[in-house]
């Protein structure tokens, strides 16, 4: 998609070139900048200028490897540069899983991409067909999937609900249509639609 965008006009392709092929000097590092480190695309999580009064200047960066999810700190000299990574976040619709790959579609272009097990990570626990997800593409391949913060999923399996028990206290496991198992209050019944916070995996309410 990035490429489509780039070839649209000469002017835009110039922008595309500058954004994606640039080497960023350390003084232009900022939170959210995507760069290549040792062959992997990484995102800058925190950037700090460090300079003792009489010493050399450095830029200390907390990096997140977008493939492995590992975060660590790296220190750059003031004359060091980092190569920009062609990474972009796109809103896409989840289509289906073929047992091996998870398929997503760009609702504007209808272009489809397939994410493997590594890219999907834990996100598969919260996917429901036609839900919107944030798909991170590197060189147009999905490397990570972020489900919406809240999703609504149906309970497909749980112990029978305790009638009238809507007060606090007690919880039980419930299996959702996506396959995830979450702790829910005792009154929840099979067939209920639940609102789940995907960041914590916690039950929020009945939808």
């Amino acid at each position, binding site marked *: 998609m990035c490429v489509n965008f780039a070839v649209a006009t000469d002017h835009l392709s110039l922008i595309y070139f500058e954004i994606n092929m640039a080497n960023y000097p350390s003084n232009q590092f900022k939170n959210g900048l995507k760069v290549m480190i040792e062959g992997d695309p990484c995102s800058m999580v925190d950037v700090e200028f460090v300079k003792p009064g009489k010493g050399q*200047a450095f830029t200390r960066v907390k990096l997140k490897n977008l493939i492995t999810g590992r975060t660590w700190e790296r220190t750059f*000299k003031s004359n060091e540069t980092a190569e920009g990574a062609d990474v972009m976040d796109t809103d896409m619709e989840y289509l289906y899983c073929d047992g091996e790959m998870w398929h997503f579609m760009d609702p504007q272009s209808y272009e489809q991409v397939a994410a493997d097990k590594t890219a999907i990570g834990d996100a598969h626990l919260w996917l429901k067909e036609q839900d919107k997800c944030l798909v991170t593409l590197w060189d147009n391949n999905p490397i990570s999937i972020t489900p919406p913060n809240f999703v609504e999923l149906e309970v497909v399996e749980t112990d029978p609900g305790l009638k009238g028990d809507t007060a606090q206290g007690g919880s039980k496991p419930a299996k959702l249509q996506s396959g995830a198992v979450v702790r829910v209050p005792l009154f929840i019944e099979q067939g209920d639609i639940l609102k789940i916070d995907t960041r914590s995996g916690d039950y929020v309410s009945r939808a």
Partner: protein
Amino acid sequence: MSEQWRATAPIENLRRRAEILAQIRAFFAERKVLEVETPLMTSSAVSDPYIDTIECRYHPLPRQQEQVRYLQSSPEYAMKRLLASGSGAIYQVCKAFRNGECGRRHNPEFTMLEWYRPGFDHYQLMDEVEALVGPIIGFDDFKRISYAELFRQYLQIDLQAVTVAELAAATRQHIDVQMEDDNRDNWLNLLMSHVIEPQLADQGAVFVYDYPASQAALARTALDAEGGLVACRFELFVAGVELANGYFELTDGDEQARRFQQDIQQRQTEGLPLRPTDQLLVDALQSGLPECAGVAIGLDRLVMLALGTQNISDVIALPFDRA
């Protein structure tokens, strides 16, 4: 409409900043230290290789006879010329300028508080720094530790024995950095700023003294208790923030000229900009600088610590990106 016009510092912070300035002036008035002003636009530049001076241009006639001037990075040279002129104890609150220094604790144009005490050594000056800074930041427990002890304690490194290669290896254990360097001080600074300083964060206020002689800058050198040559220099770290840098000042003009020469050589070796060094300072020292100690405090950082903020733009009304 963009919000770029607006002050980043809350007005309440600016009021507190003004109060702290008044408190500083009262402190020095009571101690009979004279407030002075020296030029911001100077004909020579600082020699420290890693301080990059900002240049400006003076024209006696529009667009003609251009003279390069340098925005001062510290009032040190000029204040020493006043001391050598017979000023006695002096202090100054002024703007200082440094290329490229922009970040959470840095603004390329910042405010410096600097003072000189004839008849003091650096230990007496540490006492005075404590007396000034303590009430402002609400600390009364100031620790003192030598640079060598700091490296022994936090990194198990014996500075007398350690080689540059061992320092590089020790640094790489703690920090992911792509650096090849045979300059010992660069490794020491990296360990200091990346490994030790953050650990000083929960130590309150800490004076570090007896710096390596190679980091003497404008301080005299002397033998420490273990017989090693050290710089009579101290720095104050508060909550892990480098706040003050002080010297028992070098008064030997010839040695000063030699150190300028060393800095020029290092700049040449590393391909750093070469600028005229201050012959007037050398002349002043040769004419006679009284025995004295001097210290500089980053005023913006002092206000940050007093207010408990993490970002210099909380205490500077209009920082660099809004200047």
